[in-house]
């Protein structure tokens, strides 16, 4: 078999990232296809080198084919391109229980744009907890430069209960400029209860500490894993470096 075909298969299998047994079976199957196609082109009168080139071209982009051969939803899916899907997903776009990426969607999402139950990122939309430059948490606590949520804490905070440099809400606490509906003590019990997170500044401080204690290691780990994946792919597909 030609070196070019072997290199093509190496690339496909690097992206597919399957177990050795699965990889061997996939290689045998694709090899049979490519060799059959080469033989067909040769029978049509093409020189062997041209037949090999045309066969590879017809087979498709190795990244597209290889990524397609990954499990639909893996335990861990790390991709340098496209959308990673898995229990733990890391990639430019990531969908998973734990999702890390430029755009991350998951129960726990961390990314430039993150959407989930608990979200951290430049723009964070979290159902129960959002932490970011712009944080939106309709059912829970939003902490951020601009925070919108049931309980919002930030430079600019808007929520049922809001606290911040500039705060607007049904009930505001510990705020600089504020627009509020209820005066302290008059607020309904539910708002008093929600304000627990804001009443005690230490609670907010600890949430910051907890965030960084969680954010830094997970962010570091996801970057490390992504770098390892890039290295692994580059080993099989040096053209990526071009």
């Amino acid at each position, binding site marked *: 078999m030609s070196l070019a075909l072997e290199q093509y298969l190496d690339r496909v299998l690097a992206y597919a990232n399957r177990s050795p047994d699965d990889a061997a079976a996939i290689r045998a*199957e694709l090899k049979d296809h490519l060799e059959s196609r080469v033989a067909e082109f040769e029978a049509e009168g093409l020189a062997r080198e041209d037949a090999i080139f045309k066969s590879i071209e017809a087979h*498709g982009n190795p990244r597209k084919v290889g990524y*397609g051969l990954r499990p639909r939803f893996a335990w861990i899916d790390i991709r340098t391109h496209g959308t990673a899907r898995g229990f733990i997903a890391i990639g430019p776009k990531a969908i998973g229980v734990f999702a890390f990426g430029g755009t991350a969607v998951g129960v726990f999402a961390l990314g430039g744009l993150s959407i989930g139950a608990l979200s951290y990122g430049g723009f964070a939309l979290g159902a129960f907890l959002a932490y970011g430059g712009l944080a939106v948490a309709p059912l829970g606590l939003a902490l951020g430069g601009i925070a919108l949520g049931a309980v919002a804490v930030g430079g600019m905070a808007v929520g049922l209960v809001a606290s911040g440099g500039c705060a607007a809400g049904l009930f505001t606490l510990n705020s600089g400029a504020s627009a509020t509906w209820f005066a302290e003590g008059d607020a309904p019990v539910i708002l008093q209860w929600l304000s627990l997170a804001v009443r005690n500044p230490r609670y907010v401080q600890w949430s910051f500490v907890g965030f960084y204690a969680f954010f830094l290691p997970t962010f570091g780990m996801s970057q490390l894993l992504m770098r390892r994946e890039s290295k692994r792919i580059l080993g099989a597909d040096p053209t990526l470096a071009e």
Partner: protein
Amino acid sequence: MALRKQTLDGNMETLLLAVLADGPSYGYQIVNDLNARAQGLLAMGEGTVYPVLHRLEDRGLIDATWRTGDNGRRRKYYRLTPKGRRAQRENLRQWQGLVRVMHDVLRPPPADIANPQGDPA
């Protein structure tokens, strides 16, 4: 006509089940069958058929066996399972229904409805 990738993506499983309904086959032959039936269908790459075949296998709609082909190489042959045959029949019914609906809705209107005033176009 070149079909958009998105149009094909959701329907490749149906197409592969239809090819395999004619009998067991292997990847290369399946691709040739598809190309023979619809030229240009696999413009985005013949290799993109394999992920779909593997997915169908995982879902139990097709099963696979390795056999030695005419050329002496080992080949992976796929065939429909009973579940796959049922799925293929159901897909066919759904498609026939969809084609009928699309044809009824999208067909060009009669001339008197399209241009009731009789204005020149």
